[in-house]
């Protein structure tokens, strides 16, 4: 029997804008190819929380979607902070990245409280930061994706960005050349839903951390067939990355 890894997909009903399910698919397929058995828990408002959690994936939503989930997210805040401190790997894109910080002040309406997993806060602005983006990450090298957000995020002392961006009006807030945030094994980023397929190093980081935490060490045992599939996926990702890096914003 393959070793099970429990993955929570957080609020897929309201927070799954533009391709966030691609991240889940990537984790699921790669875990299988490495010889593990992924179990996916789709967690929406008022669902019961799974008994065991090895990884948490969350996506983006519209302002409206964020309002829908906020009460439930606050209810789960302490639990998620606890998991983060234990080292459970998490990936939060866009809307949930914002709500994993301390607060989000939208351009209209009330301030939404965050759950303080990441030391950051977000302010809604008129200007939308939007377009193809490549960032330089100390840990992962070039990270390739697409950003689309009007909330501008500011990192607090002690919180590292996921990467650095070169151009003004890109990244967390358009001015300080940071993008995303990292605390423990929690990654928050504005890079859209297709982040993991084109950035398999980040997918493998999340997978390795999840397996280490649950089973002590990560010893992938892919079959010969799985190895060739992994190689093919990585080659395709390389080509897709190369094209994406040349495209206009």
């Amino acid at each position, binding site marked *: 029997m393959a070793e099970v890894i429990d993955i929570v997909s957080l609020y897929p009903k309201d927070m799954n*804008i*533009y*391709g966030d399910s691609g991240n889940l*698919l990537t984790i699921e397929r790669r875990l299988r190819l490495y010889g593990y058995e992924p179990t996916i828990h789709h967690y929406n408002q008022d669902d019961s929380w799974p008994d065991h959690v090895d990884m948490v994936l969350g996506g983006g939503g519209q302002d409206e979607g964020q309002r829908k989930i906020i009460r439930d997210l606050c209810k789960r805040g302490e639990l998620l902070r606890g998991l983060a401190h234990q080292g459970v790997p998490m990936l939060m894109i866009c809307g949930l990245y914002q709500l994993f910080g301390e607060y989000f002040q939208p351009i209209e309406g009330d301030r939404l409280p965050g759950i303080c997993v990441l030391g950051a806060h977000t302010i809604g602005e008129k200007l939308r930061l939007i377009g193809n983006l490549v960032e330089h990450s100390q840990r992962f090298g070039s990270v390739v994706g697409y950003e689309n957000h009007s909330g501008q995020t500011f990192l607090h002392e002690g919180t590292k960005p996921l990467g650095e961006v070169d151009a003004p009006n890109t990244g967390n807030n358009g001015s300080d050349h940071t993008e995303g945030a990292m605390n423990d094994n929690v990654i928050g980023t504005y890079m859209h839903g*297709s982040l993991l397929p084109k950035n398999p190093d980040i997918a493998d980081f999340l997978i390795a951390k999840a397996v280490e935490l649950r089973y002590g060490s990560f010893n992938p045992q892919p079959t010969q067939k799985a190895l060739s599939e992994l190689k093919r996926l990585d080659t395709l990702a390389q080509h897709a990355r190369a*094209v994406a890096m040349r*495209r*206009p914003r």
Partner: protein
Amino acid sequence: MEPWYAFMIPALGKGIRALSRLARHGGSALPGKVIEACDPDFLARTLAQLPGGVVLVSGTNGKTTTTRMVASILESLGMRVFTNPTGSNFTRGVVSALLDKVDMKGAIDADIAVLELDEAYAVHFVHQVEPKYALLLNVMRDQLDRFGEIDNTAKLLGEVARHTTGTVVLNREDPRISALSREIPIGTQCAYFGLAPAMRKYFPDDDNMHYDNMHDDSMHDDKTDAHGSEEAATLAEPDQMTPEPSADVTLDGLVDHGAIFRMDGATLQTTVRLEGVYNLFNAAAALTVVGRVIRNAPSDSKASAADAHAMLKALSHVTPAFGRGEVIDFHGTPVELVLVKNPMGFRLALASFDPAGHDTMIVINDDFADGRDMSWLWDVEFTTLRQTGVAVVSGVRAWDMALRLDYDQVHVGATETNPATALEAFLAVNPSQPKRIFCTYTAMLKVRTLISHLTKVADAGL
């Protein structure tokens, strides 16, 4: 205001149009752009002559085909229709098309205009010309890189509803569209097109697109916050859920190469020459607005006598718009072009066209008109292509597509970013097997041009 040189505008515009065609400028934007600059009132002044007014069609998906259906049905019923050619759904495209249609004095020979306009340009348009009818189809996750959020796109269409003088026709099944009934001004009527409950499973909305939600019974709960039609609203107690507004036309069922509609209380069946379930839903939209136009037609006109049967007969003759399920004959082999622009459109296209017996090619570009963000491909499930595989993947973002297909374990025969090379190989292998090409907007234009160099393709009117 009419400038002193307004009398020269038709001649000037026609001149520029002729020149730009000679220079093989191709697109229809230039003459419209020039005329918009020297005579900003040309559009409003010219369209104001139409006794039947303007029917404006907007929404994220299906504008071109629906506009074609509305225009063709009205024409079959005896009206003289002015419409903008495929793809020129910006105001300057409408101006360019008008230049073709007016005489040297600026007079236009038509009873009614049926115009498709992109969501953003529709707002620009209604500030110049208030349409008599607005048909608002849907708001989907298309071009989020242009409009930011889906809710913003809905706001743009709300502005269209606020400026419509006669009747606003809304999609009852799209919560963001049906909610626009609140925006309709006093004195303007509201009508709906919709789906019979059994048909709703074919059209999951964007908010419920995620695969774990697909079988959720609460799928359409959101709709209950929509404002009802007049009749429905008066029936409801203030604190009760608003009952579903009644629709003029609903799509009630699918039959082979046809559909069953409920119109004016009768259930009627017709054959269609259009492919894809979404086009049948668009047909319900077209029939609704046509019905409302006919109700207002002068009682001595041929159109005023039309009934549901006459409308359906006219619908049965409508052919697909170019690139939207259009079939090109390539030396005896049918090559079908299917435009895909957003996740829901691609999902519906995959559900509508059986891959068996066809070679499949996918061409994905990321130019401005396609949308630069490729994330949407991850919201489409491609598992239905596992059995046949995809012969060739092409376009600027071919590798993104190939990666996506591999994650769904769909075999890809070849990946070639250059569409000319890819197309040649695709057509050469297996020459007698019918072909199907799914393509984004600019990819579709490119593929169509490439095929036209190899065989005869009908003039698209661009």
